[in-house]
Each structure stands twice: as C-alpha cells, then as structure tokens.
C-alpha cells in the first residue's frame, strides 16, 4: 500500500514538473507581441495589440502566469485558445471530446499488442536461433523500422483500396459522436477502425516482443527453472507455470515506458486516418501558433502517460509478491 502511495506521489511530482516544462517552453520564445500579431493581423495598430496582450494576461510576470494557469487547470479552465479567428474560445472546448477519443483509439490496440507480444516473445526465446525466431524477428524488425506514416499509407493503399479490408479513413461524422457514445460507435463501425488499430498494434508490438524475448531468455536459464525440471515437471508445465509469469512481469514496466512512444505514433496515425483525436488538432495548433492549446495537449498526454505508468506499477505490485512484501521485512 505504502508503495503505491509513494508512486502516486512521485507521479504527481512528475506531472507538476511536466506542467512547468510545457508552460515554460513556449514562453521562452513566443513573445507576446508576436502572438498578438498572429492572433489579429500584422496591420493591427499597436495599442490594440497591447490591449490584446493585456486581456490575455501575457504581460504579467511568468510565475504569476504559471500559477494562475495551473490554478485554472485544476478547475477545468484550460485557458483560451489563441488561434486566429477563434476569438478566445476556451481551450477545453477546442480539445473537447478529442481527448477521450484518442484514448479509445490507443488503449485497445495497446492491450492487444501486449497480449500478442507475450506469446510471441516467449516462443522466440524457446526456439532461439531457429527458423521461427529468425522469421518472426525479421518481420518485427521491419515493422519497427517503418515510420508510422509509411505503414499507414501502405496499409490504406493495399488493404483498404485493393483488398477492401477496412476503410480508408474515419467518417467525418465521427467527430460528432460524443465521448460517452464513442465505444459503441467504434464497435458498430468496426471496419472503419480496423486499420488504425492494426497500425498501432504493428507499431508497438516490435519493442514489446523483443523485450519479452530477452526477458524470457533470462528466465529460462535461471536456477529455479532447473529445479522445476528436477521435480519432474514436463516442458509444458515448466513453461506455463514457472517461466511465463516471471518473464512477463518486467514487460509491465516497459509498457509504461513505451506509452509516450505509442502516443507519438498515434499522432501520425490519427492524421492519416482522419481520426478526430488530438493528433490533427495538435499539429494544427502548432502551425498556427496556438500555444495554449498545444501546452494543454502535451500536458494531458503526459498526465495520461504518468497514469499509465502508475497503473502498470499497480499491476506489478499485484503480480510480484516481492515488491508487495518489501514493506514487511
């Protein structure tokens, strides 16, 4: 229990840290005046720009801005979008349901990826250096080396267009679907989401299965595996009851660490498949210089990563009694 609390606390610290970074970064470069110009137009008279800066509170000392921004975040007020022509829509509206939709896009395939990586890595370890190992490793390496963009495009071209598997992109109607209804929507229109899901699985399975293979190899040479065989356990029994769990447990840590990577990959995939998520939004926001939105998106994603890590840690505690009992001895 204490361990979990400790991790929670650390996670909070990390989130704070991230918020500071995401806040400070744009501040280093974006000068209020250029933002004002961008938001209005080049020809706007100076005093109007000044006024704009003042209303947006951009001329206050940095720490002051940070505190009030952070305060706002806790209250659900994410600030105001600085994109041109938006006239100060709250960022929360801009981001809106996109957050949840992105989560729905990335979470299921990640879980599938883990479920596939475990047996894959395990079999690779057992049949080390035999043809299965080489073949699957090569396949995985190729997937790993393909940039998300290429992969998605190729999938669209050859699977969707040529063989009619899945669809080319998500309907723009999807944007209208609220966060709560989204899961049902996904299930109903599964073929639409097939390709993006597959893409995410392909992207993440490489690292995970490779790690699992290494972990399984390490486990297989442990003394306690020999003890199991000395008891007369069949290979099958040894594998499932003695090797599987210790090999898979470290995978949880890696999973937590690879979340940021999965989110990054999802960005591109969303872009290509036209998914109404944070990906497209963030790219656009960066392009127009709407840094409040970008800040918020980055912060949110980081929080999700931290949460993901925390969940992985909790699972770790449940799965590995050594950690659980650290407190006792």
């Amino acid at each position, binding site marked *: 229990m204490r361990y979990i*609390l400790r991790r929670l606390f650390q996670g909070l610290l990390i989130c704070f840290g991230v918020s500071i970074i995401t806040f400070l970064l744009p501040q280093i470069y974006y000068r209020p005046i250029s933002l004002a110009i961008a938001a209005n137009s080049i020809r706007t008279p100076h005093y109007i720009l000044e006024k704009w800066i003042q209303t947006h509170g951009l001329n206050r000392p940095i720490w002051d801005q940070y505190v009030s921004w952070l305060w706002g975040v806790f209250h659900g007020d994410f600030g105001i979008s600085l994109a041109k022509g938006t006239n100060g829509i709250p960022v929360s509206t801009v981001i809106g349901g996109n957050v949840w939709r992105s989560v729905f896009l990335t979470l299921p395939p990640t879980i599938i990826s883990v479920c596939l990586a475990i047996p894959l890595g395990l079999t690779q370890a057992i049949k080390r250096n035999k043809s299965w190992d080489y073949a699957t490793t090569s396949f995985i390496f190729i997937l790993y080396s393909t940039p998300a963009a290429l992969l998605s495009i190729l999938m669209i071209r050859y699977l969707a267009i040529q063989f009619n598997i899945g669809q080319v992109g998500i309907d723009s109607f999807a944007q209208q679907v609220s966060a709560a209804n989204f899961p049902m929507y996904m299930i109903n229109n599964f073929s639409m989401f097939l390709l993006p899901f597959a893409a995410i699985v392909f992207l993440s399975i490489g690292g995970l299965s490779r790690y699992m293979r290494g972990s399984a190899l390490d486990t297989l040479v442990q003394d306690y595996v020999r003890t199991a065989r000395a008891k*007369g356990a069949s290979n099958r029994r040894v594998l499932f009851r003695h090797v599987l769990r210790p090999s898979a447990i470290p995978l949880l840590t890696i999973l937590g660490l690879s979340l940021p990577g999965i989110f990054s990959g999802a960005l591109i995939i969303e872009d290509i498949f036209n998914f109404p998520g944070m990906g497209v939004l963030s790219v656009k926001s960066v392009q127009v210089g709407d840094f409040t939105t970008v800040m918020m998106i980055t912060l949110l994603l980081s929080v999700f990563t931290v949460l993901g890590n925390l969940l992985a840690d909790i699972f770790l505690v449940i799965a590995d009694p050594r950690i659980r009992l650290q407190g006792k001895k």
Partner: protein
Amino acid sequence: MQLLEIKNLSIAYSIRNGNVRAVEDVSFSIAPGECVGIVGESGCGKSTIGMSIMRLLSNNGQVVGGSINLAGKDLTRASEQEMLKVRGNQIALIPQDPMTSLHPVKKIGEQIGEGFRIHRGASKEEARARALEVLRLVEMPNAEERLDQYPHELSGGLRQRVMIAMALVCEPKVLIADEPTTALDVTIQAQILDLLDRLRSELQMAVILITHDMGVIAGRTDRVVVMYAGKKVEDGETEDIFEKMRHPYTGALLSSVPRLDVAPGTLLQAIAGMPPDLSKEIVGCRFAPRCSFASELCLSKQPDLVNASENHTFACFNPINGPVAAKVVLRDRANDSTAKPTPLLSVKNAVMNFPLRSRGLFSRQHDFVSAVSNVSFDVAQGETFGLVGESGCGKTTLGRLIVGLEEITSGTINFEGVDPSLKSKDSKKELAQVRQMMFQDPYASLDPRKRVLEIISEPLEIQNVGTRTSRYQQVAELLNEVGLSPEVAERYPHEFSGGQRQRIGLARALAVRPKLVITDEPVSALDVSVQAQILNLMQDLSKHHNLSYILISHDLAVVRYISDRIGVMYLGKLVEVGPSNEVFARPAHHYTQGLLDAVPVANVKIARERRGIQVRGELPSPINPPSGCRFRTRCPMASDICTAEEPQFTQVSPGHVVACHFPLRTTEPLTSN
C-alpha cells in the same frame, strides 16, 4: 544389487571451439542408505555427473558413453517421458544455491507440493498436507505459516530446508546433493548436514554428496570418489581414503587445505600449476604435470584403475602410501601483548549503522541495521590480525570502514596516531599510502579493460610517484614479488586464472608500500589447490616487508593458518579477541566454541567422534538485535542476565579477552587497555 550403478560414464560438452570431455570413463555404485561423496575441485566434472544422472545437463551437454543404471534400468537409454517419471520421484536433487533455486513468485507450500501433484496426481489439498508433513520432517520452525510464505522471506538455512523438503516429497530412493551447504554459514551448514544424515538413515535413501570440501566428506560419507579433470583417480571407503590414500592428488588435496586438526604452523603444500584444458586431447595421466611423484611413464600413458584392497581402487603408476608428512614451521608469533609500542591501527568504539530506506518522505529514524556495534581492537606493526565470523557479523563492514569505503557512524579509527576523519583530499591520499585493500572476487577486482601494467601502476599514478618509466620498473618488481613474470604486464586480466588475478590484486595493493593491507576473503573464490599458493605468498610478503594484515574470512582454518591474533565477531560485536593459537586451542566464548565444533574437519576420526553442534537456531535480524548479549538466542548457556545486561570484556590472559557472562575459561577484569 546396487541401487544405482554408474558404468564407464563419459560426458562431453560442445562449445564454440570444439568439444570438452568433461567426464571420462567414471564408474561407481551406491546402495540404499549409503552416502557416497564425490570430491574434486571446480571443473573436475563432479557436478556434471550429478546432473547427468537426472539428465539435467544444459543443452550442449551429452552422455557420450557408458550407462547409468537405476535398479537395473539404464537411464541413458530412457525416453524423455520415462525420465519425467524418474526426476523428483525416484531421484531427487538438492542444488547448491537455495536463493536462486526457489521460484521467487510462488508460495513455498505450492512449490513443495508440486512434485506430489505431478507424480502422485494429488489434489491441491492433498499436496498441501503432504508439504506440511515434509516441512515438519525437515524441522522447519513454524511449518504451517511457512506454507504461505515466499522464498525471499526466509533465510538461507531455512530455504535449504525447503529445498530438502521439496526433494523428499515423493520419497525418492536416491538423493543427489550438489554442494548443498557451500552457500551457507558454518553453523547452519552443520545443522543441515546433521539433518541430511538423520533423514538418510530414517528413510534409507542413497545420498550422493557432491562437494569440494574434504572436511564435509570426512564427516558424512561412507565412501568417496575422488575426481580430477574428469577422471576418477581414487575410490574407496572414507577411512581408507583419508588414512591410507594411494593417489598423489588425494594426498595433495589433503595437505594443501588449511586444517584445524593439524598443528598450527604446519606448512601448506600448494599444488603447482593448474588443471588441464579438457577441450584438448590429453596424453598420459592428467595429474602428471602437477604431480611431485610423476615419472616419464606418467606423462605418456594413462594409468588404469587398480585395487589397493577390496573396496579401494586408484589409478596411478607411482602411488603414495598414506598421508605425506608435512613440515611444521614454528612461527614466531607475537603472543604477548604487554610492552607494545603505539599500535599501527587502533579502532575504538566503532559503530556503523546503515539507515534503512525510508518509505516516502516520512523517514523513520529508528529503523537501521546495526552492522558494527562498539568494536575496539588494535593491530600492531607486522602482525596479521584475523577477523572471523559468519554472514551478517559485520566483519566486511568493519573492513570497509577501516579502508575508508564507508563512513563511520561514531567511534574512531586511528592509524599511528593520525585521525582519518579529516576530510581533505590530501589526507585521503596520505591514508592510501598507509592502508590498502585486497579484494575478494578475482574477476571483479581488476578492470577488464586495463592492462596489468596500468592496473598496478594506478595507485602510483594517483600518488604522483615517480615518472612513467620509473613506475614501469616498480611494476616489474612488484610482479616479481608476487610470483609473476614481469612480461605479464602487457596482458589483460581475462587472460589469467583466478589465483593469478589475486596475485595481481595483491601487487596492486602493495604498490604504494602500505603498512597495512586489509584482505576480505582473499581466497574464498579460489580453488583449494590454489588457496595455499596465495596464503603462503601473503605470509612471505608479510615477513619480508614487516607488513600487517587484517584478514577477514569466514573460514576458520584459513584464518588460523596465517593469523597471529584473531577477533571473533557476531552480529556486529566482537565477542572474543586473542592470540590465534590460544583462541583456537582453548576458546573462551560459546560462539567461538560453536564455530570450532561446526567447521568440517578433514579427519575421519575427529569428524565421527565430535559432539554435535551446540549452537541452535538461526541468525537474528541485525535490525532488531537481541537485547543484552546478542548471542543469547542461540547460546546453550544463556540465562536471564544475558538478556538483561550486555557482557563486558574480561581477560582470560594478557591479550586474550572475551565478552561473556559465563565464559568457558576463568577470567578476571581487564588489566590493561
């Protein structure tokens, strides 16, 4: 008919560059209730034989000849299915390291009961009941609770009991114990070996005891098979082997190991050279290159096994006839402690507490490990001080404190009047000139990426002594002193054997000509035949340079061999200090006596006649050491005052002190500091 018969067994491993003939043409047999010991150094093939009986060799190992007959059936020709029925059922294994041999994420009850479920088709409850039964059989305290615990919650000794329980669960006919106590403390080792003896007679099991320790062999086995470089060199009843051995190797083994039963000052006969490379073809007797009795014939032809008597065989052309008498060198030891000049090293009231990791921000001040508690002793110039004790006694920590690798919590450590707590960088360098360290692990103590030259000259570099060329000269001299040729300076550590690396480590420690060298387990990681070389070297160097050593070891015999005075530690406290001969001959503290009782002695008569271990139980936790006398929980003489009051040092004779309320010798209050 014998229960298990090994006939002309040959085993080979395939490695990158070829084949290693790990075992060649070995035969022996074992009857129910009998204990056969297989003894030899590392690489001799004894473990390989054990593993092959159960067909547990690693993937690249294979039986290439001979047979293994269990009650008439040849196991080498059995299918894997049949072997599955044999393992854990008819033949069981007790491996060496109980820490890594238990599954970390499974409960103990489950692990023990698994064999029962596999071979007897038992249900979970039945298996659990049987596990409990077996735990009681191995005298596990609180057996019922243990069923639901995890391995890391138990100490080493208890874990080994679990391993034994696991092996017994299906009542096997043969038990293979592969170095079952090497990883354990001496007092625990004695308990486990007693347990095995008892179980063997109760259950009439045949036990194959694989070990490198001749003392264990002497005390626990009926017959012995002596292995060298994959071949059996001698085989017979234990008494015959020890008292009437014929093969020179057996004799050399017994005389190269420090022993407690011989007179102090008996010179160890080191065995020169190293075991042969088994991946190459070997002509002639495998031991011949190292044998002091070898002749031309030995080098060209391999000796066959011949009978010395009915049950005693050996393979040698020039056999010996019983133990070779060894020289006794009377060492002139500093026995009296009066009239001493300023001691070289003076430790006073040293305390070392390790804080336990605090959970979260709220650290608890009272959770710490009391590693060293109020320890005081002196070391004189030219003296070898032995620090002895089991794991967790604090001797390693104390060594690290003296050498500056740990920061002392309180107390002082003075070198010739210099106070080392001055934190300036220069004083650290100054101290480095006075005291140096020689490390335990020959593989990890030398930087694998540096040549020997760089390794040995590094301390000189740091002290800014001389120039590049002059340093090279010094390195050459040092190498000479430790018995290596100066050419080796160009080589890298991985090109050397363990013993040679320890020599290099010693040379490095001596580079700055320190007055004191602290060595932590200098020979534990080495083969027995090599240990003697290093110990003799250390002695010579000490005489030559008037060097002082602090020898930290758990091995009493090693300590006795080269120490002038010794200090016995238990759970952070010094319990007895005195001249080595006296303490070993007539110890005053119960723990010292317990240690001496527990150490296996390579002498069959003594081993069989000695009384059982008097030290009970397990080591208490250093986080919460027992009040009063820390040893009281395991002491046969403990009483109320031991719980209430911590014993102070009293004097047995000048220079010999003990901290006990009921010491084994009469004492008087301290006369001098």
